[in-house]
């Protein structure tokens, strides 16, 4: 089933809204499971989660920090009188991770739509074309900027600079060198892009016609309303339960 990008946007927005507002571990887990099911439905690959293993470290870090600075619940672990880990701290750490996972996983729902489709969706939602176009440029250029920064870092090392053997200040200096090519690339590209836009008569007419026209199918409307109803219900349940 191919869904309209707007439907997907509504789903992502619903799930991440819940992730932000709900503070209850159980409800958060339910939201996470739903995100996983929905995202799986769109057959997104999960390779990125491998890279996200660092989250575990974050969880541990947050759990300890919360326990030390705002202890709550029972003490799980401590040295003499000094509390290191409490149930409250652990729960807070778990909740932060659950939230992050919901946001990241629900965002993968969008991956199946091309940037062009997303923009078209925004335009048909009456977002001004200029803004939608800027969003599309950002989506297109961010990975390129990342690649450029990486290339610069490689190039610096290939001049015979061994990062591991540098002092901290020198290491920072190396990082500062990475911005130069990226920044100059951005400025250069922006200039060329604006020339090219002018040359192709961008905004020559107040109205733009689109080759693609998105239409919401019954399924789209159904899923969209279901997402909204579900989100509101969850929020109401959550507020009543408190």
């Amino acid at each position, binding site marked *: 089933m191919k869904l309209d990008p707007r439907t997907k946007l509504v789903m992502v927005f619903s799930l991440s809204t819940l992730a932000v507002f709900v503070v209850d571990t159980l409800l958060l887990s339910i939201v996470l499971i739903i995100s996983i099911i929905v995202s799986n439905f769109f057959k997104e690959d999960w390779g990125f989660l491998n890279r996200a293993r660092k989250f575990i470290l974050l969880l541990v870090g947050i759990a300890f920090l919360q326990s030390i600075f705002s202890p709550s619940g029972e003490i799980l672990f401590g040295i003499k009188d000094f509390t290191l880990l409490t149930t409250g701290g652990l729960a807070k750490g778990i909740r932060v991770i659950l939230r992050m996972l919901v946001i990241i996983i629900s965002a993968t729902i969008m991956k199946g739509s091309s940037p062009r489709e997303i923009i078209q969706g925004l335009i048909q939602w009456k977002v001004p074309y200029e803004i939608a176009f800027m969003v599309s440029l950002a989506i297109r250029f961010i990975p390129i900027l990342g690649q450029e920064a990486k290339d610069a870092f490689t190039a610096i090392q290939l001049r015979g600079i061994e990062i*591991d053997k540098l002092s901290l200040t020198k290491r920072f200096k190396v990082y500062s060198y990475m911005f130069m090519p990226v920044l100059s690339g951005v400025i250069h590209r922006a200039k060329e892009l604006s020339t090219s836009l002018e040359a192709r008569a961008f905004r020559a007419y107040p109205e733009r016609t689109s080759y693609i026209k998105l239409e919401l199918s019954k399924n789209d409307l159904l899923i969209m309303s279901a997402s909204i109803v579900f989100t509101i219900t969850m929020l109401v349940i959550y507020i009543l339960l408190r």
Partner: protein
Amino acid sequence: MKEVCSSNTFIEVNNVTFSYKKSEIILKNITTSFDKGEFAALIGPNGSGKTTFGKLMTGILSANEGSVFVEGKNIEEISLGNIGKKIGYLFQQPARQLFNPTVKEEIGFAHSFMGKSKEIVEQKVNKIIEEFSLQGLEDASPYRISRGERQRVALASIFINEPSFLILDEPTTGLDIVRKEQLSQLLKSLQPQGIGIIVISHDKDFINKNADRVIELYGGEQHEA
């Protein structure tokens, strides 16, 4: 004179397989080696994996299977910094390897960053600037010079490190006839010093004139001509 390394091999590529995405293998079971003092050319159609192969031999990318050895040592165990001291690598897009505000600083970077004295750096930079006929551009930004000039700045900043092996990804792109001839001469003069060279190129004339050996890549496989 004592011979530490009896073999003449500089880079050894052993059964290397590489893919960016699981579904699409770019290089399949490549096995070959490159000697000191050798001039090899790597050719093949667009997208055949030449740049990828070059990056594997510089340690920028890691092989999925098989290994690359540099002077007998597995490349995975050598830091990029150490590889850079031995191998000079020219990016296909030289703009990607320039990161200093002026041409002069760009060329002198490796030396000045490692704390060499101003006089020594200046002396070396001036010599190289002359070699690559970059006089007059010393204070220009590497981003605001012509394509061919930028290419020469990138080459100059590699050569100042006196590498013992060169991997050049399309070094003649953007060079005029005179500069191309000068590059030929320069590379030729390095060979007797035992410096090995791999040139990735589509430039038939340049290859025919200089290369001792031509390797063609297509369909992920190597074909020695």
